[in-house]
């Protein structure tokens, strides 16, 4: 599980706004259908906890601090970028576009990364009222080899790793499908 995203960190600023629009239409088609004028679609925000420096979720209408929001509202920001792109000329270079729209730079970068890595992004609205963080957590943990998920709430869960995996003395002759046999 690795990808050389650093290689694509630099924004290809010689490309055009039209190309960027095409990428967004292709890669974020579902995101573009979300209506961010509706309160429930931007109800939450992500912040960093002071003690553990981990991402946390809060209701922007009930709690203070949304001005310190982390750049994790990708769906909202991609839609904002797309709407901005619709209002400018098709043949502008990305350099020209960014010189007056620097607040959208982080999502311009993400759009060019997702062009190369289609699975680099969570294709959902991460600030919606209905977001269930544990879904993302389960996905991430499964990449690390987690098995047997035991949700304790919709925000945290216990897991088991490598239960049923071959022991060192069994490595010469083991069932390669062991992981699937221990799930149930």
């Amino acid at each position, binding site marked *: 599980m690795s990808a050389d995203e650093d290689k694509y*960190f630099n924004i290809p600023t010689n490309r055009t706004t039209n190309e960027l629009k095409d990428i967004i239409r292709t890669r974020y088609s579902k995101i573009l259908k979300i209506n961010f004028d509706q309160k429930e679609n931007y109800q939450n925000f992500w912040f960093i906890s002071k003690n553990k420096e981990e991402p946390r979720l809060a209701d922007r209408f009930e709690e203070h601090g949304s001005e310190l929001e982390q750049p994790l509202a990708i769906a909202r920001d991609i839609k904002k970028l797309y709407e901005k792109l619709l209002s400018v000329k098709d043949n502008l270079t990305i350099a020209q576009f960014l010189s*007056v729209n620097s607040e959208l730079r982080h999502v311009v970068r993400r759009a060019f990364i997702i062009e190369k890595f289609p699975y680099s992004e969570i294709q959902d609205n991460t600030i919606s009222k209905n977001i269930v963080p544990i879904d993302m957590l389960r996905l991430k943990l499964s990449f690390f080899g987690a098995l047997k998920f035991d949700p304790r709430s919709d925000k945290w869960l216990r897991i088991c790793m490598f239960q049923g995996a071959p022991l060192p003395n069994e490595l010469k002759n083991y069932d390669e499908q062991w992981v699937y046999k221990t799930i149930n």
Partner: protein
Amino acid sequence: MRSLSEIETAVKRASRAVGFSWGNSEEVGKSIRQLELFGLQGIKNLNKYYKDKASKKFEELNLICETNEASLDAYCPVVLGISFLDQIKSVENFNTIKFKKIAYPVIFLSFLSRASEISGKKIHVRFDQNEILLNLNVNISSNFLKQNIPEFANDIEIKFINNEDNFNESGME
């Protein structure tokens, strides 16, 4: 000792806190990480610059020409660096690019180093009495490694160096 990844994250958050957009803050994080990797004082200079920024007004240059002179006290090295990266395809065609008055030039250097990698050419920088060669973001050579890097550069001259062999054909035989 802090890891480069911690440095990048801390710089990104600090840059956001002083008012840069998230995207610009990501650029600063990446650049300062690179400076620290090369053993130059990235964090120290950025910290001083952000303190200065609270009380002074620095000029933000978005369109780079062959000759550029700040009308305020000095150019902001962050906005200048990001503009340089973004406009690399046009500025690399200039013979020489000249700037007058840049605050904390070492911060600007970090962006130039990345620009060297993007353009695929070495970049020679002269500011005041100092000379620096940026080698495709692989290393930085200069004639003042043991001195503190000045906090202000009055005259800056930048040249892209065309790629050429430093030997002739007979040297290959």
